[in-house]
């Protein structure tokens, strides 16, 4: 074409740790052995959390639940890069983020058992309540970043969402404002290849999700979402950039939803078992384990200890969640506004 070229864009992918546990040393972020062990322990705890949630649900002790199986590295790896006071806007499938941020486990179980009290974030964290309506929390992250920028308080803001969320108008409006105001925000997409039964290729015709960032004048990057080092590095870099006032970044974590969409879903209706099989070999925890083995950071005893510790934490959390007294009818009313309306008072009386 003889037309003038106005702009050229390259969309890149970052990979550090491969499925055999080998890392690209040139790209490897600085992480101490203790950091790496901590990552492994958080991944393991996340998986234990998830497995227990699924079995509680089967036993009728919990409501509909959205498994994070397979996505642990994309969640723990990114959250590992955050400061405690950073603002986090999660969707409903990011318990690995909660866990890495040290959100009380029993509250997570309480929430998934159908109790709003599980969403009351402890005062020392700035995690927003889980957002069920897909993608609608993205503009909140944008707004929180406007506030952070205005106050110069050096908090960064992170929003998490799935591949399906990229089709929503709110994704667009939130991203666009972040670009215009050059905000300290990092958008992290868990591209787990499925939005219930809709595969990634039917969600959008774009070759990558990462490239969507360029529509808003900032950078997008795809990372291997099952590679905890790549996820960590991309997030860390994006956060440094955000705090330096250099604007937003979009990170597409290329991963896979290993389980059904939720416990109410039957994924055999719409996807092939062999696709799931293929991804098993890319398991994010296995991969880190192989790496640690090579580094001498893993042993059978260590694993046993990690498992034991995880199980104990989960046991305790479940117990605590289930020991909580049931919510009271007035709990429905009390936080509608700061004060009950006259009408609400009357209605409460009538119950």
């Amino acid at each position, binding site marked *: 074409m003889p037309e003038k070229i106005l702009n050229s864009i390259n969309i890149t992918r970052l990979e550090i740790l491969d499925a055999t546990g080998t890392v690209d040393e040139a790209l490897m972020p600085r992480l101490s052995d203790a950091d790496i062990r901590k990552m492994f322990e958080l991944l393991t705890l996340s998986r234990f959390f998830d497995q227990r949630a699924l079995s509680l649900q089967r036993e009728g002790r919990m409501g509909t639940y959205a498994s994070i199986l397979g996505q642990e590295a994309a969640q723990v790896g990114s959250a590992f890069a955050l400061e405690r006071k950073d603002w986090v806007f999660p969707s409903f499938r990011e318990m690995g983020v909660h866990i890495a941020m040290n959100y009380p486990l029993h509250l997570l179980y309480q929430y998934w058992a*159908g109790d709003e009290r599980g969403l009351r974030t402890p005062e020392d964290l700035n995690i927003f309540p889980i957002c069920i309506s897909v993608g609608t929390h993205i503009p909140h992250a944008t707004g929180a970043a406007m506030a952070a920028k205005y106050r110069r308080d050096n908090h960064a803001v992170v929003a998490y969402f799935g591949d399906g969320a990229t089709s929503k108008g709110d994704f667009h409006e939130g991203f666009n404002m972040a670009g215009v105001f050059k905000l300290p925000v990092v958008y992290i997409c868990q591209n787990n290849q499925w*939005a219930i039964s809709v595969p990634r290729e039917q969600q959008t015709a774009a070759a990558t999700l990462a490239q969507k960032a360029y529509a808003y004048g900032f950078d997008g990057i795809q990372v291997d979402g099952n590679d905890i080092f790549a996820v960590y590095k991309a997030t860390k870099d994006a956060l440094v950039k955000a705090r330096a006032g250099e604007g937003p970044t979009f990170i597409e974590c290329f991963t896979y939803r290993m389980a059904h969409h939720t416990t109410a879903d039957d994924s055999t209706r719409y996807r092939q078992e062999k696709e799931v099989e293929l991804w098993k070999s890319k398991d994010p925890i296995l991969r880190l384990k192989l790496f640690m083995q090579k580094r001498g950071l893993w042993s059978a005893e260590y694993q046993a200890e990690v498992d034991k510790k995880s199980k104990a934490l989960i046991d305790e959390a479940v117990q605590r969640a289930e020991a909580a007294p049931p919510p009271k009818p007035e709990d*429905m009313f009390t936080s509608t506004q700061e004060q009950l309306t006259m009408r609400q008072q009357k209605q409460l009386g009538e119950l």
Partner: protein
Amino acid sequence: MPKLTMVQALNSALKGEMERDKDIVVLGEDVGKDGGVFRVTEGLLERFGSERVIDTPLSESGIVGAAIGMAVSGLRPVAEIQFMGFIYPAFDQIFTHAARIRSRSRGRYTCPLVVRVPYGIGIKSPELHSESSEAFFCHMPGIKVVVPASPYHAKGLLVAAIRDPDPVIFLEPTRLYRLIKEEVPDDMYTIPLGKARIVQEGDEMTVIAWGSMLHKTVQAVEGFDAEVIDLMTLNPFDAATVLTSVKKTGRVVIVHEAPKTCGFGAELSATIAEDAMLSLKGPILRVTGPDVVVPLPKLEDYYAPSVERIRKALEEIMKY
């Protein structure tokens, strides 16, 4: 005649209508391969192909907006919004366009669109999966709002909605999807929009309900001489049937699960207070959800009007 659940009855309506008219297409999230998260569209993809049964991106405004474009250019789209809690992103498309196209084009363009929406509390689901916001859509001139309360009516009303020349919001009570089985004809039949039905006759009070509240109402009136009305179409609603009944009984109780303030019960009550005031023996009572955010499962039984709360109102009204 086969006994069908509401899910099956709706599925049968869609199949039958799609056989009849190839301008009818179905679109929405997971309506194709998955057959809809409640399986209402099950088997349609296999039967009618992916050009007529369209799995869309996750995009409610886009779904309704595209359906409007289809409707205007001569198709008859049946869009599904996965849960009523996710219809709000499409609110603008419904209000600004679906409702107004006929008017804005002075009749040149019409919008024969059905938006199917599972709604209501009672299946212990996550946040925003239990909403009942019918009143919003009743305040939109140009939009019809339909709510079936049984498999038989679900089929007849859905067929009527699909054949209607104007946009219809079709609300499906999830709690009833599989709760009741009922004889449902294989053939296509319609139940006219805009008409209520008297579920049982009675002389001492008129009790009005729709959707899943109808069943609790029918249980609650046992032992009372109550006339029970299933409204079926909320907009435009069948004022004649309501007023005739009220003029006979002189007492009114309205039941709905949406929050009380500005719920559809308000319009019913106001219409009665305007047009049948002199027949009334006592106040017009509303038994509704409270003015709160619809709670998660652990509190949902406190939220929705219970048989007991309805009975209390019936007892109360009988004091007049």
